[in-house]
């Protein structure tokens, strides 16, 4: 009777002891596991700082930096902690560049926490630290920096002080750039070497001809990539305040122009597509072409008759009007629609322009649109359509992001038509108004365009938009170069010398001459007995 409880207690103690031993053994095993077997602490639970890049980089097609967030500081102060507020305002003003008047005002206010300066650089941060002032707080922030400065400023765009994209690719790719991790970035289609050359030549030409504005586009005809785009006047994206004469407007995508004779490319492409005329067919030019009560005249004196080929080469308005009328309004409108000229161009750049064309598309409109009047399109829209004409006749979507491989879409023009148009554009350069755009070895084809600017419903003869659309190498086109000058004038561009053949064409030639070797375009031998590609 006495032993039974003792045995029971012992059993219970033994069980409890066994459980304790097992528990300690488990803890011990875990300790061995943690400390010896897996002794290298991974630190996975430790929060790691990320580099201060809240927004991903923008890069050009070769990885060159276009935009990057750099570390800066926002400086705040607690005024009640400042011993000598006037002295603090003076010293902080001299170091950060903030207005001393404003600092005096905010330091004397009743607010507990005031902003002294935003986006001060690390150097300024160190200088402020050396002041030894109490009651200052630094908050880390980021400032968007554009190493290329003014180059392609409108295309790249800018951000606001809070890092939100407000224009250009900064806005168009905002979601992608915000979600990007450090080290990642959006690779654009831009080539900053080409961008520099285009901008440089346009700047020289704008100054030489005293033009109000100038712009240019270089596009790959197989991928639709915009290799370079310049709009002058431009601006410095690193300076928030705009200088006098600067402009953040991208005239290549935001403005529409009556481009004039460069539009004849499409009238001829349609005529070749539908076989409404042969290249050697003669048409009367003489003193103009009468249609209704209007007479279509030429910018320069023309012979009585010209072949269709020479109508394009000499840029005859009367001849092109007759060719356009053979296609008719319905077909012409459908053709321009298929080329995308009657709708706005969508790309990664958010700024767009809507084309202007007549609501009533009759015979007169068909004739004038044939030579590029009565219809206004953005230069980007025009370049895309021109690329479609020469790239074998296939649809193209312009892009500012790098693409690999052929991105041509559906067939909209027969390949034979595209081939004929290439020959015609080469003929314009070898025998027509585009002679000064030729670059030996690169076989440039192209078309000039000189359009009088409409002001209050009337065309002003002295105010021109001159442009040139160059395609090279014409046998196997790779790139379209389009340049535009708004109101070229001055002593070097008076009268006929203001026309595109004397202003825009040589400008395009200079651009091609400089960019072709960089783009690796195969160069043809330059020999006296070489056959012209006509």
């Amino acid at each position, binding site marked *: 009777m006495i032993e039974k409880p003792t045995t029971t207690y012992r059993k219970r103690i033994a069980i409890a002891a066994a459980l304790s031993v097992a528990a300690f053994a488990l803890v011990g095993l875990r300790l061995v596991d943690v400390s010896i077997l897996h002794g290298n602490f991974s630190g996975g639970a*430790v929060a790691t700082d990320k580099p201060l890049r809240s927004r991903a980089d923008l890069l050009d097609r070769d990885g060159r*930096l276009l935009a990057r*967030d750099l570390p800066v500081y926002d400086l705040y102060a607690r005024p009640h902690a400042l011993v000598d507020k006037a002295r603090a305002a003076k010293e902080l003003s001299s170091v950060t560049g903030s207005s001393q008047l404003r600092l005096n005002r905010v330091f004397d206010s009743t607010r507990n926490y005031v902003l002294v300066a935003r986006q001060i650089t690390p150097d300024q941060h160190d200088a402020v630290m050396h002041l030894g002032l109490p009651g200052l707080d630094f908050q880390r922030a980021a400032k968007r920096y554009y190493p290329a400065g003014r180059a392609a400023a409108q295309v790249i765009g800018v951000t606001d002080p809070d890092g939100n994209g407000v224009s250009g690719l900064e806005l168009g790719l905002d979601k992608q750039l915000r979600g990007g991790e450090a080290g990642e970035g959006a690779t654009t289609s831009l080539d900053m070497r080409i961008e520099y050359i285009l901008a440089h030549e346009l700047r020289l030409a704008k100054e030489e001809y005293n033009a109000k504005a100038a712009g240019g586009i270089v596009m790959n005809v197989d991928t639709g990539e915009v290799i370079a785009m310049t709009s002058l006047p431009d601006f410095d994206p690193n300076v928030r305040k705009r200088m006098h004469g600067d402009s953040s407007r991208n005239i290549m995508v935001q403005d529409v122009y009556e481009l004039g004779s460069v539009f004849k490319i499409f009238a001829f492409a349609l005529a070749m597509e539908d076989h409404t005329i042969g290249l050697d067919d003669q048409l009367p030019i003489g003193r103009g072409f009468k249609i209704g009560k209007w007479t279509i005249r030429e910018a320069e004196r023309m012979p009585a008759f010209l072949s269709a080929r020479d109508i394009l080469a000499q840029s005859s308005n009367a001849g092109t009007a007759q060719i356009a009328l053979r296609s008719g309004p319905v077909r012409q409108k459908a053709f321009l629609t298929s080329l995308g000229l009657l709708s706005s161009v969508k790309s990664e750049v958010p700024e767009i322009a809507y084309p202007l064309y007549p609501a009533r598309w009759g015979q007169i409109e068909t004739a004038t649109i044939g030579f590029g009047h009565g219809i206004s399109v953005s230069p980007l829209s025009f370049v895309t359509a021109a690329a479609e004409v020469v790239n074998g006749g296939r649809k193209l979507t312009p892009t500012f992001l790098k693409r690999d491989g052929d991105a041509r879409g559906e067939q909209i023009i027969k390949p034979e038509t595209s081939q004929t148009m290439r020959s015609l554009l080469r003929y314009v350069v070898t025998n027509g108004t585009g002679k*000064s755009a030729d670059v030996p070895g690169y076989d440039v084809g192209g078309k000039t365009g000189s359009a009088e600017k409409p002001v209050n419903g009337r065309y002003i003869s002295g105010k021109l938009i001159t442009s040139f659309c160059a395609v090279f190498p014409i046998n196997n086109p790779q790139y379209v170069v389009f340049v535009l000058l708004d109101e070229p004038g001055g002593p070097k561009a008076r009268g006929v010398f203001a026309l595109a053949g004397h202003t825009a064409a040589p400008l395009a030639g200079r651009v091609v001459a400089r960019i072709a070797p960089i783009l690796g375009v195969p160069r043809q031998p330059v020999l006296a007995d070489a056959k012209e590609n006509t």
Partner: protein
Amino acid sequence: MVRILNFICVALAGFSCLTLYHVSERTRIAREELTVVNHQIVAERNLTNVLEAEWARVAEPSRIQQLAQQQLGLDDRSSAQLASLELLPRRGEAAAPLATTPLRNASDVVPVKPRNPNIHSVSARTGT
């Protein structure tokens, strides 16, 4: 038996405490070291970012061209002055065709007239 078990348990508890303290201390030190290293990495990356941006600025094409002109006397060449390798004469062969043949297009004449000194004229003028 119970005493032995108790002793073992106490000993294990003591050992566990010591080991736990040791591991905890090592963890704390490792965490601090990790924080320092992470800060260093971030600082280095930020510095690298700044230097890359600085490099992009100093290696900008306009600056390179300006330096090439000023320091090396280099300039753009006309396309007619460029040639592909197959056009160059091999050893023992006659002069390359380019050396003796007139240019196909007269438009390749390169006018070199001084312009606005503020803007450097560097292009090969192929037009008229």
